[in-house]
C-alpha cells in the first residue's frame, strides 16, 4: 500500500472542514428577501432561530421555509435577493419552499407553495435561467423570466401570463399547457386539466390588480411624495414625444410602425414597386 501523500491529507482536511462549515451554515435560516411594502397584517408562522409566530412589518427579512398568511384586506410585497418580487393578496397563505441564490452567477432556485389566495410574481435574475415555481394544491405554475398572477382556492388554480418567455401550468396528473402570449391565461382543477390558453378579459385583470393594491386615496392633499412631475414620466425614458405616439415611440414593434409609415408616405416608393422604374412614359 502506498502511503498517502501529505498533499492528499491536506486536501481531505480542507474538504471535511468545508463540509462541516456548510453544515453549520445550513442550520441557519437563509434570508430570501425583505418585506418591502405591506398594508394590513401579515402573519409569519415563525422561523426557527429568528422569530416565533408573529405579525411582520415592512423592512423585516423573510426566510426560506417561512410560511406567511395575510389577513383579510392585507397585501404584502416581498423583494427577493435576486430582485424577483412577490405580491401577496388578501387572505392568501404561502410558503417560501425554496430560495437559493448565488449573486456571483445570478442563478438559483425559487419555489413557492400557495395554499390559497392570489399572488403576483415578477421574475428576477433566477427566473432568467430557471423557472420560478408556484405550487398549488392542484398543480404547479412555472414562470420563465416574466410576470404572472396565480390564484387558487384549493380546488381550482388559474394562472395569467402578463409578460415574459412563457408560463407553464401542470396539473397533478402531469397535463401541461404553456402560455406564451401576454394577457392570456389558463385554469385547472383537481379533475380538470389546464384549459387551452385564452385571453383574460380586462375587467378580470382589473379585479385581480385591485386586490393587489390599496385603492386610490382620492385626496389630493394626502398624496404620497415623489412620483413624476407633471408631464414627465420616468418610464418613457428620453424617448422624444413620450406617449403622444406610443406606437411609434414606445411599442416594441415601433421600428416597423415608423418604417412603414415613413416609407408608405413616400409616393415614389409605391410607383417604383408598381412599375419597376417609377415612370410612365408616353408613346412617342
Amino acid at each position, binding site marked *: 500500500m502506498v502511503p498517502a501523500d501529505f498533499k492528499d491529507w491536506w486536501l481531505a482536511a480542507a474538504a471535511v472542514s468545508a463540509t462541516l462549515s456548510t453544515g453549520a451554515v445550513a442550520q441557519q435560516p437563509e434570508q430570501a428577501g425583505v418585506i418591502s411594502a405591506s398594508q394590513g397584517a401579515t402573519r409569519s408562522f415563525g422561523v426557527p432561530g429568528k422569530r416565533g409566530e408573529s405579525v411582520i412589518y415592512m423592512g423585516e427579512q423573510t426566510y426560506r421555509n417561512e410560511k406567511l398568511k395575510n389577513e383579510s384586506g392585507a397585501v404584502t410585497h416581498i*423583494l427577493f435577493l435576486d*430582485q424577483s418580487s412577490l405580491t401577496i393578496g388578501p387572505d392568501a397563505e404561502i410558503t417560501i419552499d425554496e430560495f437559493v441564490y448565488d449573486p456571483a452567477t445570478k442563478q438559483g432556485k425559487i419555489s413557492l407553495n400557495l395554499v390559497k389566495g392570489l399572488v403576483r410574481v415578477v421574475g428576477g435574475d433566477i427566473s432568467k435561467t430557471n423557472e420560478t415555481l408556484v405550487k398549488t394544491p392542484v398543480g404547479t405554475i412555472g414562470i420563465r423570466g416574466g410576470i404572472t398572477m396565480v390564484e387558487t382556492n384549493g380546488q381550482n388554480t388559474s394562472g395569467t401570463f402578463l409578460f415574459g418567455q412563457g408560463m407553464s401550468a401542470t396539473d397533478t396528473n402531469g397535463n401541461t399547457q404553456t402560455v*406564451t402570449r401576454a394577457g392570456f391565461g389558463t385554469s385547472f382543477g383537481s379533475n380538470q386539466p389546464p384549459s387551452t390558453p385564452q385571453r383574460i378579459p380586462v375587467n378580470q385583470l382589473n379585479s385581480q*390588480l385591485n386586490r393587489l393594491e390599496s385603492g*386610490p386615496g382620492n385626496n389630493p392633499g394626502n398624496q404620497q411624495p415623489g412620483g413624476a412631475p407633471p408631464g414627465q*414620466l420616468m418610464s418613457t425614458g428620453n424617448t422624444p414625444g413620450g406617449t403622444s405616439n406610443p406606437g411609434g415611440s414606445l411599442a416594441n414593434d415601433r421600428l*416597423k410602425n415608423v*418604417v412603414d409609415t415613413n416609407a408608405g408616405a413616400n409616393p415614389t416608393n409605391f410607383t417604383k414597386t408598381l412599375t419597376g422604374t417609377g415612370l410612365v412614359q408616353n408613346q412617342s
Partner: protein
Amino acid sequence: MKSFSKAVALKAAVALGAIAVSFSAHAQINDPRAQVDEAFRALLAAPGNLDRGYGYARALINAGNYEGGVAALERMLLDPNASPSIRVELAVLYYRLGSYDMAASYAQAAVADPRLDPALRAAAENLLRDAQERTKTHRFSGSIMSGLRVQSNPMGSPSNTTPTTEADIVLNGRLEHTWDFGAQNGAALVSTLSGYASRYFDGARYNTKLGKTDPQDLFAIEATSGVRFAPAAASAPTFTLRPYLLLGDAFLTGHQYFATFGGGLDASYRSDSGKLLLDATYEARGTDYNSRNDVFEANKQGGLDNILRLRAGYEVAPGQLLFGEVIGRNRNTDREYFDFNSGELRMTYLANYGNPFGWDNRAWTSSVYAGPTYRKYGGPNAAIDPDTREDLEWRVGLTNSVPLSDSWSVFMQAEYTRNDSNISSSDYNNALGLVGVMWRY
C-alpha cells in the same frame, strides 16, 4: 541616471494605475447593471425610503429592465396615498413590454383617479386608446397622405431636352386590417390596401390616343392578404412569417393600364427590446398590361416579376433609426428590351425629436435617404440603339413630418433623381418637392 529612470518609471506606473482605477470607476458608474445593483442594495437597507424606491425603479428602467421597473413601482401601490402617476408609469412599462391588456388596465385606473394632473391624464388617455386598439380582435392601422407635388421632369424626358415642370395633387396611403385569431402563436389574418392617385394640373386628356406630350394621371390600388404567425412562438415569439396573395389594378388617364396578381412570403424578426428589425420578403408579381395606343407596346410589357426585399432597421438611440433596404428585381416581359434585372440599395436615417418651437410635446420626424439602383436590360431595342441599355439611378431625398395633432401632420418631401444610362436618350433627372397633410390611424 539609473535612479532617475527608476523614479520616472515608478511615477509612470502610478499614473497608469490611477488612470486604470479611474477608468474602472467610471465604467462602473456608467454601467446600468451596476447602478441597478447599487440602488437595490440601498433599497434593501431601507425599504420604506420612497426616494430609494424611485431611484431603484429609475435605475431599472434606464437599464432597459422594464419588468424590474414594474416590480419596483407596483409595490408603491400598497400605499393608499400612492401618487396617481405610478399607475401611468406602470401602464407605460407594461405597454413597452407588449403586455397591452395590463397597460390598458393601469391606464384605465389612472384616468379614473381625479388626482391625476392634466398632462399625465392626456398621456394616460393616449396610451389607453392605443393599448385598447391592440387588444381588439379586429384592428385597423395605416396612414394616408395627400399633397401638392411639383416635379421638374415627371416623365423622365432625356437630359438633352428641356422638360416642363409639372404640378399635381397626389394621394398615397396604406391601410392595414388585422384579424387576430387569439392563438398562442399570434396567428392573425393581415390584409393591406395600398393606393396611389395623381391628378396633374396640366395633364394629358382622358383618352388613349397616340401622341400625348403631357404627363398622364395614374390611379392604382393594390391589396394583399395573408396569415401572419410565429412558427416558433415559445422559443422565438418575435419571428413571424406571412405568406400572402396580392391583387391590384392600375388606370392611366381613366382607362385600364394593367392588373397585378401574385403572392409572396414575408419573414420578420425583431429583437426583444424592439431596437432591431430584420425583414425579408420574396414576391412573385404578375402584371397584365392592357393594349393601348398611348403607351409604347403596352401589351408586351406584362409578365412575371420576381422581387426580393431585405430590410434592416436599428434604433441607434431613442427616436433615432437607421435602416437599410436592398431590393433585387427580375422582370420578365414579352420583349427583351423591357426585361431587366435590377438591384437597389437605400439607406435612411430617421430622427424623432421634440418640437423645436415648443408649442406642444409631440415629436417631429425628419429623415434623409439616399441610394443607387442599377438596372440592366435583357436586350437592345434596335429602333433606338444597338446597345443593350444599362442604367445607374441615384435617388436622394429628405422628408419632414410636423404633427398638428395625434393623428394629423404636415408632410414635406424633397427628392432628386438622376439616371445615368449608356443610352443617351435614357439619361434623365428629376427634382421633386411635395407638401401635404398626412392622417395616421
